[in-house]
């Protein structure tokens, strides 16, 4: 009888432990979920990217560093500003590094889709100006010979994984199009890894 009672107590204890663990999980998850940005909050993204021009005479891409800050107008939509430095074509020729850099200054809108408490997908669209700076090229990349500032825009998709509550990691793929004044649109893509922070 005692043995039976002990077993029953043990079962209860296990049940209580499991329930406690589940409750703790739920609390933790609900906390993280509420950590995702909501209306009137700000989201800052700090990104490092592989950037590659997709135009005539483009050489290998290199890297980009980008920062963006957006305000959540609704629980899903944010608008803000994005700045960056993207080296979209790079070649070493006889000890000289030829590079084509672009500084985007964009107004950016981002729409978030929550697919799990920790996970959000997002799609973005941006428009603004691009400062294009070719450096030491023999052949013009995309027909651009000289530094110039031109209008353009971008579209992108990606995800954020809010692993740390009000901060998270994510990745996105972004395509940029610039009206460079040459025959075709100047274009480049960025495959970016982001560290994102939510500010109240």
């Amino acid at each position, binding site marked *: 009888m005692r043995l039976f009672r002990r077993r029953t107590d043990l079962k209860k204890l296990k049940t209580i432990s499991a329930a406690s663990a589940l409750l703790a999980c739920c609390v933790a998850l609900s906390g993280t979920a509420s950590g995702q940005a909501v209306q009137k909050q700000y989201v800052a993204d700090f990104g490092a990217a*592989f950037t*590659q*021009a*997709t*135009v*005539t*005479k*483009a*050489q*290998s*891409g290199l890297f980009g560093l980008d920062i963006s800050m957006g305000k959540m107008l609704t629980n899903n939509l944010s608008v803000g500003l994005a700045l960056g430095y993207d080296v979209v074509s790079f070649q070493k020729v006889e000890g000289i590094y030829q590079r084509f850099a672009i500084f985007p200054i964009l107004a950016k809108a981002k729409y978030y889709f929550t697919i799990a408490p920790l996970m959000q997908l997002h799609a973005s669209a941006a428009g603004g100006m691009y400062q294009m700076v070719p450096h030491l090229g*023999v052949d013009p990349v*995309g027909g651009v010979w000289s530094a110039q500032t031109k209008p353009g825009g971008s579209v992108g998709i990606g995800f954020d994984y809010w692993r740390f509550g009000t901060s998270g990691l994510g990745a996105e*793929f972004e*395509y940029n199009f610039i009206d460079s004044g040459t025959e*075709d649109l100047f*274009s480049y*893509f960025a*495959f970016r890894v982001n560290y994102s922070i939510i500010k109240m």
Partner: protein
Amino acid sequence: MGKNGVRVLFVILIFVVGLSGCSQEGNLAVKNESVSEFQGDVENTRVTIDPGESYTTSIYIGKTLAFIGPSGLTVTISGSASTKRAFSDEVEITSDETTVYRIIDDVGACDFTNRYNLQINAISMKMCDSTEFGPNILGQDRAIAPGTTKVIQIDPGCWDILVNYGRQELLDTVTAIPIEVGDEIDIPWVPGYVYTVLASTRAR
């Protein structure tokens, strides 16, 4: 690192490699189908192509990702040959294809050599059925020194050549020179030279 980690890394690697962009290249073959040597520039490279020979080069077009990016590139071919007027053409190079550009004669030529011991000051030409010679085709301050040759491009037809030579600016005429497109004739000029077709025509 577990098996899953390796798989994830492999997928990421494939993804990144796929995103690194595809290089697009095409080939350009310049065939010299004229009867004279071609000298010129092909995509900023100086080339000389003998008659009947070809110059083939690979042209780097650029980078693409999926359907975005360039599938072709316009390159410039320029130059001239004795029997081909100076030209500059743009040719569209398509990715993974060989574009053939043919250099074809469009004029005749005369290799006019000064075999006399006085310099030639000026050369004028006229059609055989015309009465007046045209302007000096050598231009100012461009005499033909003894022993040197000047290549003169001539439109098809029958031509007379007026030669002004020496300090006293003596005149001599070479008459009835028939020229057709692709002809390249030699005129080893001395005063009183008489042009004969069979001895002078080199190619056609």
